[in-house]
């Protein structure tokens, strides 16, 4: 019986080992560690005939336990996997900590009252063994016995063997799974990292492209000012490569030395948060300088600490130069405009505002900065007669947009009238409406006046030139008239009633001769013959003419100084001075008044007169005063300027007082003017006194002593009447006379008559001229005396180099007295 029992037991044991082996073989093919545990649990329940099985799996990281419950013990996989989050229950601690099997019965005392994790089946009898490898305990397997069954002693080593086998397998699978998981994680991490890197590279590339295409310098500096980033544009402008620049101190490398200290301060301000734009000079590698405008922001790390700056810099060198150039050009323009007195105006048609430069304001008599700025304010400043024209000009310009020019007068609040001219341009908008008008304005009052004066003087010059030539002819004619008068007066009986008529003719001829001098004064052909004069006589001589000249409305009051000293001056010129002053006085008294003429001896102490300084000494003063309108100070100041006139262009040449000034100045005198508005004007002319005796003005026909020897005069003049007259005058004076109408005829006459003492010849003649004739006759007879006679003056004749030594000059018209005197002079009989 015993052997049979043993054999059975052996057979049973053998079967269980075989089962164990089979389980081991079966499980060895399971790849999943948790499924391995489940399948091992299921096999153990079957092997040991247990009611249930639970497996506790310890998380080696934190010691918490998961339970694989028996509901899934068949290994089909279920829901029963419970994570408790709790540590190994005390009941199994010996199993885990002691790595031993534990067989117990909860119905007995020591295990009673244990709380099992729900839904762990309640334990009655149990057998637990650790699932472990030599390296670690991974959990335990707990078999729950059937109702009343208990586990046998030899169940313990068998379960221990199974658990140990499962433990090693689990370890291997868990390590494998962990390794696989780790490997997956690493692989995933690698992929992620690759992806991130790729993304980062894309972003970097994109950022770099942004940096590179930017046409501004993009620059990052760290806190010390070292370059941490610079874009392509920056490198190109600065002339360095990116590699060279990175890490270098920007301020030391790229800023001119003179600015570094100041700009390092500035850099610190930027770091302190000053976001204002900065303009700095920037040094290029080649030593050039750029002007760069920087805008700065701060770079911060994740914690918000400032780690540097990020700046964009615009190269404004060209713009700066352009702005400078523009400013310079504008300044130059302004300077030019101001100095040329060119005003600028600017009309905005949209707002209706008109802007004037100060120069324009001055041209319209508007105080600087007070122009109201409207078209109407402008037109109000235009001379009333010109307003319509101005409106029309500007209206046309606004319609056509064509350049235009204008000429009009401005009228100032004080009544001043100025001539303005200018040009403008109107810009038209898209629909042809005027948008803006700009232009210039110049005050050309003076220029116009000068132009008018110039034209007037041109006219005068023409008249004078004509008059000069004509005066020559007049003088010939007057010589004839006066000569015949002389002959008639000499021949007629003293009782002849015609004497008076002929005297009238003679007086008129003398006056006419005086007037031709005035014509000639302007052609500088006047014969200036200073003689010693009594001013009272001169005044008396033209008293009558003055009366006619000034009209009936003006009375003449003479106050001639007694014992008046003599002066030395040209008679005609002194007359002219008197006449010009008298005419001015008359013009100053359009409604009549009194013309006062005074003469007096005065002593001057060398003071200035209005026309300049005069030497100290005795003078004769000639005062011409009126009771007229008087003159303003500005008019007085310009009195003696040539072409200055207050009269209309027809009446006045502006030469009257200038002529007076010239004549008085040449005589060594001066002029004073005293004028009061509404009271009148007084001119005082000072002539230096002369100690010489008076020369007769119109010498009475002299009682001529007959010449001792009859002298012969050859008269040559192409004017036949004059020639004949001269012959008769000379014959009356006791000379023998031969006449010739031309130079050639004179040569013949001279050849036929040996006894010719004097040649009296005209200068300008057809054929052989006076000088030519003289040369040829003097060649034949060096002792021949020569007198030129001409209506031209001596200085005109002498300008042509025809008056040599021993040649006298006789100015036409002449009287028989001057003719006889001249002949006696050349004959040495004076």
């Amino acid at each position: 019986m015993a052997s049979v029992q043993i054999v059975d037991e052996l057979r049973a044991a053998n079967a269980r080992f075989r089962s164990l082996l089979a389980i081991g073989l079966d499980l060895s093919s399971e790849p999943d560690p948790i499924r391995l545990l489940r399948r091992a649990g299921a096999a153990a329940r079957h092997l040991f005939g247990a009611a249930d099985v639970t497996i506790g799996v310890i998380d080696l990281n934190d010691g918490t336990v998961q339970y694989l419950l028996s509901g899934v013990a068949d290994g089909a996989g279920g829901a029963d996997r419970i994570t408790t989050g709790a540590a190994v229950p005390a009941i199994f601690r010996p199993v885990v900590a002691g790595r031993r099997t534990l067989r117990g019965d909860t119905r007995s005392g020591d295990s009673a009252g244990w709380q099992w994790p729900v839904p762990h089946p309640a334990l009655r009898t149990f057998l637990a063994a650790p699932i472990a490898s030599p390296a670690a305990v991974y959990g335990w397997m707990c078999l729950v016995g059937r109702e009343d069954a208990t586990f046998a002693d030899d169940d313990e080593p068998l379960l221990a063997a199974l658990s140990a086998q499962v433990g090693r397998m689990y370890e291997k699978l868990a390590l494998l799974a962990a390794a696989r998981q780790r490997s997956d994680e690493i692989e995933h991490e690698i992929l992620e990292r690759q992806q991130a890197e790729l993304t980062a590279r894309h972003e970097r590339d994109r950022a770099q492209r942004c940096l590179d295409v930017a046409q501004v310098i993009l620059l990052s500096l760290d806190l010390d000012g070292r370059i941490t980033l610079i874009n392509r544009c920056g490198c190109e402008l600065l002339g360095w490569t990116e590699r060279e620049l990175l890490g270098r101190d920007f301020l030391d490398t790229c800023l001119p030395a003179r600015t570094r200290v100041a700009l390092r301060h500035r850099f610190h301000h930027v770091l302190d948060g000053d976001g204002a734009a900065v303009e700095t000079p920037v040094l290029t590698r080649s030593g050039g300088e750029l002007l760069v405008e920087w805008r700065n922001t701060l770079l911060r790390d994740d914690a918000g600490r400032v780690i540097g700056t990020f700046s964009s810099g615009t190269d404004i060198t060209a713009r700066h130069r352009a702005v400078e150039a523009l400013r310079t050009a504008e300044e130059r323009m302004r300077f030019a405009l101001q100095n040329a007195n060119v005003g600028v105006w600017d009309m905005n048609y949209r707002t209706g505002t008109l802007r004037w430069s100060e120069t324009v304001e001055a041209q319209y008599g508007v105080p600087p900065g007070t122009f109201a700025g409207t078209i109407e304010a402008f037109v109000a400043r235009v001379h009333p007669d010109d307003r319509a024209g101005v409106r029309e000009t500007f209206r046309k310009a606004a319609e056509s947009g064509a350049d235009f020019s204008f000429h009009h007068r401005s009228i100032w609040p004080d009544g001043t009238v100025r001539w303005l001219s200018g040009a403008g341009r109107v810009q038209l908008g898209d629909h042809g409406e005027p948008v803006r008008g700009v232009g210039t304005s110049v005050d050309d009052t003076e220029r116009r006046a000068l132009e008018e004066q110039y034209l007037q003087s041109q006219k005068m010059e023409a008249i004078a030139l004509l008059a000069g030539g004509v005066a020559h002819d007049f003088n010939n004619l007057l010589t004839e008239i006066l000569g015949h008068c002389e002959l008639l007066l000499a021949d007629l009986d003293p009782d002849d009633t015609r004497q008076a008529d002929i005297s009238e003719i003679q007086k008129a001829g003398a006056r006419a001769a005086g007037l031709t001098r005035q014509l000639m004064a302007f052609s500088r052909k006047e014969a200036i013959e200073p003689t010693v004069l009594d001013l009272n006589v001169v005044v008396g001589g033209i008293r009558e003419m003055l009366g006619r000249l000034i009209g009936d409305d003006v009375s003449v009051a003479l106050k001639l100084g007694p014992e008046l000293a003599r002066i030395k001056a040209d008679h005609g010129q002194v007359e002219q001075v008197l006449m010009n002053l008298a005419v001015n006085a008359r013009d100053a008294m359009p409604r009549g008044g009194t013309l006062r003429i005074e003469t007096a001896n005065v002593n001057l102490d060398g003071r200035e007169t209005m026309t300049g300084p005069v030497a100290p000494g005795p003078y004769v003063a000639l005062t011409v005063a009126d009771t007229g309108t008087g003159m303003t100070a500005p008019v007085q100041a310009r009195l003696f300027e040539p072409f200055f006139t207050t009269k209309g262009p027809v009446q006045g040449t502006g030469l009257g007082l200038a002529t007076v000034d010239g004549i008085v100045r040449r005589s060594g005198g001066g002029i004073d003017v005293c004028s009061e508005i509404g009271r009148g004007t007084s001119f005082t002319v000072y002539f230096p006194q002369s100690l010489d005796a008076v020369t007769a003005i119109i010498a009475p026909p002299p009682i001529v002593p007959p010449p001792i020897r009859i002298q012969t005069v050859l008269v040559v003049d192409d004017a036949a009447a004059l020639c004949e007259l001269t012959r008769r005058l000379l014959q009356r004076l006791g000379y023998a006379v031969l006449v010739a109408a031309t130079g050639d005829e004179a040569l013949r006459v001279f050849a036929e008559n040996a006894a010719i003492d004097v040649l009296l010849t005209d200068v300008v003649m057809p054929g052989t001229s006076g000088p030519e004739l003289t040369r040829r006759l003097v060649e034949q007879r060096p002792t021949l005396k020569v007198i030129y006679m001409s209506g031209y003056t001596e200085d005109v004749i002498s300008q042509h180099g025809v008056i040599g030594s021993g040649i006298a000059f006789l100015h036409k018209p002449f009287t028989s007295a001057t003719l006889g005197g001249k002949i006696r002079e050349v004959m040495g009989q004076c």
Partner: protein
Amino acid sequence: MIDGTARHDFKNQLAIIHGFAALLIAEAAADDPRRRDFEEIAKAAVSALDLLARMGPEPVATPVT
């Protein structure tokens, strides 16, 4: 010619000369030896007046009577 006045005055003088000369001629007997002198004077005065007229139109001025 200077301001119209001188010219006017000049013309007046010539007119006076011519006037008196014409008077003398008219009063002179046909065989008066002075007649030629009067005629010369009148001729010269007319020539001078012609010359004056050829100098252009008289400037606008108030004639002085």
